């Protein structure tokens, strides 16, 4: 009789557990994205990444106060020890005690929740199970890119959603980045901790530079004074994000930014006669041009010259991916015009319409998708025009910001 009671109790417990929805990869990922907006934490972080002289293990004490404030005290290696970084959501303040120097640079930005959809579009996200990190239960997620980008694993705290551990690997470097919280606490972090130190006599240097964001490539061309080129095609999963003009001394550079939702790529263009080829790096060929490949930390760069332009593409990506972007940039205006005509003929659309979408930064395959879905009347995101896409995105970003600020207010 006692056994029957226990069995019945067990069945009730199982039924109850089934009634609770289990974690989904999307739910865990969304939790990780939202975590910085709702959770303070203090942790010791140990990460291993490529350094100036081979793999480097960095040890740091980190504090986060929701929603956008971060403090990092670097403890090791010796070249970084003592460096203090405070990111107040507007600026990054870097204090170097050994140099008696305080540097003001732009903030590393805020959590952009609108990128969640793109992460899901460009990666296969799987929930592999659970694990324990720094004494806490964590969900283990894997993100497999649809293109040649890095594969990632993330250990996400079951209660708070904070990423406790992460790894990145690609075919060229194997596992090139690992980061772990060896100790973490989720108590409220006081605001005073994010005060920027200003010891007597400290030199304060501003490195905020000048940048102008624009909506179209033609506007960017006017800003920089030369025709700006967009890649014909992008690696799978990547999309155009924004365009801006930046200053390099007296020279204006055009910068196009792309993202797969997880990591970004920046494509720089500037007149070759104004900016020399940075020395060093591994020499390789891109089409008919000689390029130099460089590595700085987890980032890779390719720098080359074509059509009178000095071009550089930067990102946390294998060289194969950067090379794909580089091969797709052709500064020859007649080649661009030919391609516009070809796509217009293929889609049965006016060439002006294709050129307009190109001016919005879209690659030719994105343009084909937009025009095809418009022709077939498919009710998908791709059926909307590029301009309304931008408007939709901006509307969504505004909604997310207003949602985030309503969550932040006490």
């Amino acid at each position, binding site marked *: 009789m006692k056994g029957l009671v226990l069995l019945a109790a067990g069945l009730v417990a199982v039924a109850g557990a089934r009634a609770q929805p289990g974690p989904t990869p999307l739910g865990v990922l969304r939790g990780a994205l939202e975590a910085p907006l709702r959770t303070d934490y203090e942790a010791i972080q140990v990460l291993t990444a490529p350094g100036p002289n081979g793999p480097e293990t960095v040890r740091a004490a980190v504090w986060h106060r929701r929603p956008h404030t971060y403090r990092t005290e670097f403890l090791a290696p010796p070249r970084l020890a003592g460096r203090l970084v405070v990111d107040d959501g507007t600026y990054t303040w870097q204090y170097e005690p050994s140099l008696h120097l305080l540097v003001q640079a732009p903030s590393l930005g805020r959590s952009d929740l609108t990128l969640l959809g793109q992460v899901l579009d460009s990666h296969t996200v799987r929930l592999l199970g659970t694990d324990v990190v720094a004494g806490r239960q964590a969900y283990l997620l894997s993100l497999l890119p649809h293109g040649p980008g890095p594969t990632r694993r993330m250990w996400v705290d079951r209660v708070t959603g904070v990423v406790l551990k992460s790894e990145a690997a690609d075919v060229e470097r194997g596992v090139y980045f690992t980061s772990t919280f060896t100790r973490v606490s989720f108590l409220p972090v006081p605001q005073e901790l994010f005060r920027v130190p200003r010891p007597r006599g400290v030199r304060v240097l501003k490195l905020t530079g000048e940048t102008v964001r624009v909506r179209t490539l033609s506007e960017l061309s006017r800003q920089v004074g030369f025709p700006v080129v967009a890649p014909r095609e992008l690696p799978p999963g990547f999309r155009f994000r924004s365009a801006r003009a930046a200053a390099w001394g007296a020279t204006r550079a055009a910068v196009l930014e792309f993202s797969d939702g997880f990591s970004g790529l920046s494509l720089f263009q500037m007149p070759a006669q104004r900016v020399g080829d*940075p020395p060093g790096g591994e020499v390789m060929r891109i089409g008919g041009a000689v390029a130099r490949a460089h590595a700085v930390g987890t980032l890779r760069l390719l720098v080359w010259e074509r059509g009178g332009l000095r071009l550089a593409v930067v990102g946390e990506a294998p060289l194969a991916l950067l090379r794909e972007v580089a091969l797709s940039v052709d500064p020859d205006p007649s080649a661009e015009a030919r391609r516009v005509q070809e796509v217009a003929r293929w889609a049965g659309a006016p060439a002006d319409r294709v050129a307009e979408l190109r001016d919005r930064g879209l690659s030719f395959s994105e343009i084909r998708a937009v025009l095809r879905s418009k022709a077939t009347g498919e009710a998908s995101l791709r059926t909307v025009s590029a301009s309304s896409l931008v408007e939709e995105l901006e509307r969504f970003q505004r909604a997310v910001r207003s949602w985030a600020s309503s969550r932040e207010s006490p």
Partner: protein
Amino acid sequence: MNRRWERLVSAYLDGEVTPEERREVETRLRQHPDLQQLCEELAQVRRLLQSLPPREMPQELESRILQAVRGQRPRSKQTGTGRLLWAAAGAAAAVVLFSWVRGGLDRLRAAETGVHWFVWEHAARGTPGPLADRTVLQVALTDGSLVLLGEPRASEEAR
């Protein structure tokens, strides 16, 4: 000695430093004989350039510039308009020279800062994913800032 000090000493000799930087350079000069030597060499070059006699502009240069600007031969005697054109041509030449010098400086800077400007711009203003590791981005940004400012790394200063 690093490039920041080289630039500061050069600016110091040109009288283009703030009072704070002046004090900083003078202290540094007292402590570092190699910097002092560089300062003396630069001062010598300046003295040499200043001692060169001023040269008259050749007459045919005037003719060539005026031809280029107006597409016609200059009048033998300068009128008010001629003087104005001369001034315009001089200003244009100065702009071209300035741009050329600045362009040259940019090329030099590219060699000096290597790829760090690209890395810095990417880290500071790019589109990092919301799940990107901030600490590793901070290392890229802050290392880049020191290179762009011509500051030695903390460890190099300690050595």
